[in-house]
């Protein structure tokens, strides 16, 4: 289904949803930092900046409770968190690189174990994507086969038009329902041309060649030259729309506490630290190698997909300038 919505009507739509108790998550400023966060009013939404963290947290929060326990005398009671209580959500203004990563994550969260925390939020969320009109030289969506107009992952996709407003296109029943519930805010598509889209400058990777090289080079001296300088923080993984490792910890006292699931990162020293004291990834380049292997080989082996959508966030935030686009490009040319 194709429609048109003006900026004014889009704001009205969001305000109506908020008033009706729907959780509306969109890019907004939090103390100077753009983040995907719940809105209290459509006026908070910003569309001109890529949020610092990806949209994955709408489904896979930085930290969430998964169980609580209480102990009284010899009696222990455990309460599960009920995913049925997660709110209906509309996620708006999602960049194509963020939206495209979400169906990629479905594969791992619904594989042998069905992660109801992720999947229930997926069922209850409508994703409204937004085409990208600006890119910097860290952007490389086009290098991994996506584009600033990529609609993968979006239920409804907005393309900004010359003269204001958006062309709307639906890609699922959820997207159609959103329009059907608010028909007065949408009109028939007009002939205004789209605003010029962003043009990421990175050359397209040969992902088959990249994988073929990775298949054969678990041991290779280039890992040292790539990642000796890696300082071992989790910034790259935490801003990534596709990284999905988490840790589970129990926090509280002997009497009561909570089991929590929170983001983890393969760059951390303790990520593979065994209880015995042994650490199979005993040096930083081995940890960074895992990041590349997981994104461009292991996930492909297991699910036939690439675990990178080219958002460029890890390049921008890396304290020591590790540039995954340069690394993968070079691997593809070996």
């Amino acid at each position, binding site marked *: 289904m194709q429609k048109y919505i003006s900026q004014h009507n889009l704001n009205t739509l969001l305000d109506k949803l908020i008033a009706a108790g729907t959780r509306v998550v969109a890019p907004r400023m939090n*103390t100077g930092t753009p983040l995907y966060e719940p809105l209290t009013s459509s006026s908070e939404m910003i569309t001109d900046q890529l949020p610092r963290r990806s949209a994955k947290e709408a489904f896979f929060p930085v930290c969430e409770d998964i169980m609580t326990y209480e102990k009284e005398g010899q009696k222990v009671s455990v309460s599960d968190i009920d995913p049925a209580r997660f709110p209906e959500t509309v996620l708006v203004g999602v960049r194509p690189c963020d939206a495209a990563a979400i169906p990629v994550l479905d594969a791992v969260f619904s594989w042998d174990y069905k992660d109801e925390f992720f999947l229930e939020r997926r069922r209850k969320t409508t994703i409204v994507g937004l085409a990208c009109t600006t890119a910097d030289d860290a952007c490389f969506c086009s290098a991994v086969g996506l584009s600033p107009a990529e609609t993968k992952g979006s239920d409804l996709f907005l393309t900004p038009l010359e003269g204001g407003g958006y062309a709307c296109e639906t890609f699922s029943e959820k997207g159609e329902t959103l329009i059907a519930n608010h028909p007065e805010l949408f009109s028939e598509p007009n002939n205004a041309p789209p605003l010029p889209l962003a043009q990421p400058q990175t050359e397209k990777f040969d992902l088959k060649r990249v994988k073929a090289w990775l298949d054969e080079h678990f041991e290779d001296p280039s890992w040292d030259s790539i990642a*000796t300088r890696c300082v071992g923080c989790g*910034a790259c993984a*935490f801003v990534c729309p596709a990284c999905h490792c988490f840790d589970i910890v129990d926090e509280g006292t002997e009497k009561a506490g909570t089991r929590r699931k929170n983001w983890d990162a393969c760059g951390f020293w303790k990520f593979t630290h065994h209880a015995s004291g042994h650490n199979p990834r005993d040096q930083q380049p081995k940890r960074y190698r895992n990041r590349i292997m997981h994104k461009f080989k292991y996930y492909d082996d297991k699910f036939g997909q690439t675990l990178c959508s080219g958002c460029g966030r890890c390049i*921008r935030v890396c304290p*020591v300038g590790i540039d995954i686009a340069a690394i993968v490009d070079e691997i593809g040319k070996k």
Partner: protein
Amino acid sequence: MTPIDTSIYAAVSAAIRAEAQRILTEGQVSAVVGYTAARRKGSAQPVVITDANDAARLIFTPACVNNLAVYLTKAKKEIPKKGRIGIVVKGCDLKALTGLMGESQLKREDLYLIGVPCAGVLASTFDPARELTADSIAPKCSECDAHLPQGCDFLPPQTPATPALDRKYAAEIARLEALTPQERWAYWKEQFAKCIKCYACRQVCPFCFCEQCLCDRNKPQMVETTPRPAGNTAWHIVRAMHLAGRCAGCAECERVCPMDIPLNLLNRKMAKELKELYDYEAGFEVNDKGPLTSFTEKDDQSFIK
């Protein structure tokens, strides 16, 4: 915005290249830690060079933001520690090395210090091609007293010309000090709420060289590891306290924070307290006893009531 004159950086880069090549060729050092250009326009990255021919890759630009001292600490075991190591240092980085010598982490004779006459570097490398101006310059540079690092083995002859700039930390600390405790608490609660526990602040800090951070321990767990308000606040307070009297203000923690938490404000506030209480400033001379690890009868005792 007023541009900062960085025209000396081309000559500084050439001098660094020539010196690195000389000391590697003569075998005076086993490696040189410096900066090299990277793919993105205007970008730079740390590099470890062991072959004299690679010295030609060294640069110094406003994007050479890293404090390379982190590569000489125990936390970074991957850098070979055999023989003397050459390292490119700005004045702020040198203060960290001085502190590490005082804490017996490094020996002066194991280092060959290549100083940088530095007019300033960028606050952030999100856009590494950004021009260096009074607006884009790192706040630490607005308060720098070490544009020419002292006591290096080699210092290019150029003299940086940095105009007087508004002292950004001093102004922000004054603003926060003028708030009520409740308002200040609200400010930091909001900032720490953004923390995602990526530990970039810890990993780039030259003084975070503990082989196992207290905050990574789980038997017993000293600090909640989850990125939630209690654990986040505990983590940042532990860090500020642990760095008091040691941090000399390279501000790497603040630069790398992907959530833009103004971490160096905490460090500068602690430095200000130590100056007032003990007339102590970190990073100027090699001291094996800092103000918080020694006692004299002259120490302020007014807190005992």
